């Protein structure tokens, strides 16, 4: 089972976005953002709630029309009217938008039909996707009776049914408990590796972006404020942090390496903690606020 045939395209960037903007009334939701996503990348769009992540994903998938800017898939300009480009995309929305009365298999069946799949090929894909999502035993269970984690997996299996090359996931683990969240990360890695799908996910969970992503783009108040691999982003701030516990606040100082942090520590006579930098620190440094309040 594969998402994409590697021979079908030559351009290095699977997704290229230029000057994308969208406002709702006087509120600017996304403001002239540019970025590229390479083929097969697991790409995270990180930012606090309300930063513009969902609006971006909705424009990338044709659910919202941009006010300005361009989206290209494999060098071809995306227009929701171009049905062949829509075929390349699989979407996992933030909410589990399943038909609760329909069984797991029926939910997949309708999706397949919407994407022009039919007959034995469709049945085979349904079996295969249910198996991949460990939901074969729930095939005839109404979607409304599945657990939260299973519903999420079913929504992802549904998005994979038509073998998209790019999978968009909007906050894929929101609402899941920590155990289910970790299982979901393993599942997403499996999709990225086994099905060779490019994955574009939005998240406001720092750990999720750090653990999963090859590259991270940080968005705040509709603008992109930083981008790179998690390591590059942390290096740009300093790999080590010294948390200095003052009387009424914690002050953080950043250092390129542990030795420099230790030297500074020796100069201090208050409570301190040395730790490795996280993307939360990067965000804090860039914006003066935390991602997850």
């Amino acid at each position, binding site marked *: 089972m594969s998402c994409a045939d590697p021979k079908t395209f030559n351009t290095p960037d699977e997704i290229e976005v230029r000057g994308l903007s969208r406002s709702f009334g006087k509120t600017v939701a996304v403001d002239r953002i540019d970025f590229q996503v390479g083929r097969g990348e697991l790409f995270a769009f990180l930012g606090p709630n309300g930063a513009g992540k969902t609006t971006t994903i*909705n424009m990338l*998938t*044709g*659910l*919202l*029309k941009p006010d300005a800017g361009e989206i290209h898939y494999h060098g071809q300009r995306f227009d929701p009217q171009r*049905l*062949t480009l*829509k*075929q390349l*995309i699989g*979407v996992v*929305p933030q*909410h589990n*938008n*399943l*038909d*609760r*009365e*329909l069984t797991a298999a*029926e939910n997949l*069946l*309708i*999706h397949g*039909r*919407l*994407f*022009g799949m*039919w007959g034995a090929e469709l049945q085979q894909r349904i079996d295969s996707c249910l198996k991949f999502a460990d939901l074969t035993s729930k095939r005839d269970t109404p979607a409304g009776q599945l657990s939260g984690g299973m519903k999420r997996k079913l929504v992802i299996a549904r998005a994979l049914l038509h073998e998209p090359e790019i999978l968009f996931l909007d906050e894929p683990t929101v609402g899941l408990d920590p155990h289910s969240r970790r299982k979901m990360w393993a599942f997403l890695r499996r999709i990225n590796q086994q099905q060779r799908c490019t994955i574009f996910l939005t998240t406001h969970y720092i750990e999720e972006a750090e653990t999963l992503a090859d590259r991270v783009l940080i968005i705040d108040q509709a603008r992109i404020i930083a981008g790179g691999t998690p390591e590059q982003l942390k290096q740009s701030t300093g790999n080590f942090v010294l948390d200095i516990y003052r009387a009424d606040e914690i002050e953080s100082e950043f250092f390129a390496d542990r030795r420099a942090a230790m030297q500074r520590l020796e100069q201090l006579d208050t409570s301190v903690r040395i730790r490795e930098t996280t993307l939360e620190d990067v965000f804090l440094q860039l914006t003066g606020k935390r991602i997850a309040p």
Partner: protein
Amino acid sequence: MILHGARAIYLREMLILRRKLIKTLLASAVSPALFLLAFGYGVGRGAQVGGVDYLVFLLPGLLTMSSMNQSYGIATEINISRFYFKIFEEFLLAPLQRWQIIVGETCYGITRGLIPVLIIAFYSLLAGVSLRFGPLFLLALLLHLAIFALLGFIAAMIVKSHSDQATINAFLITPMMFLSGTFFPVEQMPLPIRAVASIFPLTYSTQLIRATLTPGAEVSFTLFGVLTLILATLFFIARQIVARVEI
């Protein structure tokens, strides 16, 4: 595959309808039965309207009214799937021309509208009223159901919430039910009411369906033309709206 999107949407709606068929049947049976008892056997017992027994006049009216309610009722379902369950997003994301969504939902509205038709045909048998269920009736019924399914679709696309939907029902559907010749001839009403009735599509479909069902009545082919024109206009409007719709 031709019309794969429309067929997928129709299949989805039918799978859901299958699961709530008993509820839909009961809901479609109760209200016309009550109207039939109250108006047919209560108020209108023994009365003659336009030269026919009142029951012969009333049953086609009940049929158009009840089937309109069911066809138009897709508005509430689309509304829920759009704003609450967000399943409508699946249709917007799929590689299909958006007019196929209109076709799929309209076909579903037509199917739903057939349920009260069967029930009222059964009531007419019980009441011993002979109606003419011929090909002209079927054609008129198809136009009528498609018009109200399209109206339901348009309503679901233009509202911004569930409460907007209730407002449309209160200001459009309920007046249409009572002023379009379901229970009494429009010609008997005062001029202002007749003027209002003339803008309701139900007035024309009731008139046409009643003529096709009533033995000996003359069927106006102009009304077929009027209904076809309304249908084409509504499809055009629906197409314009759905092309612009965002989540």
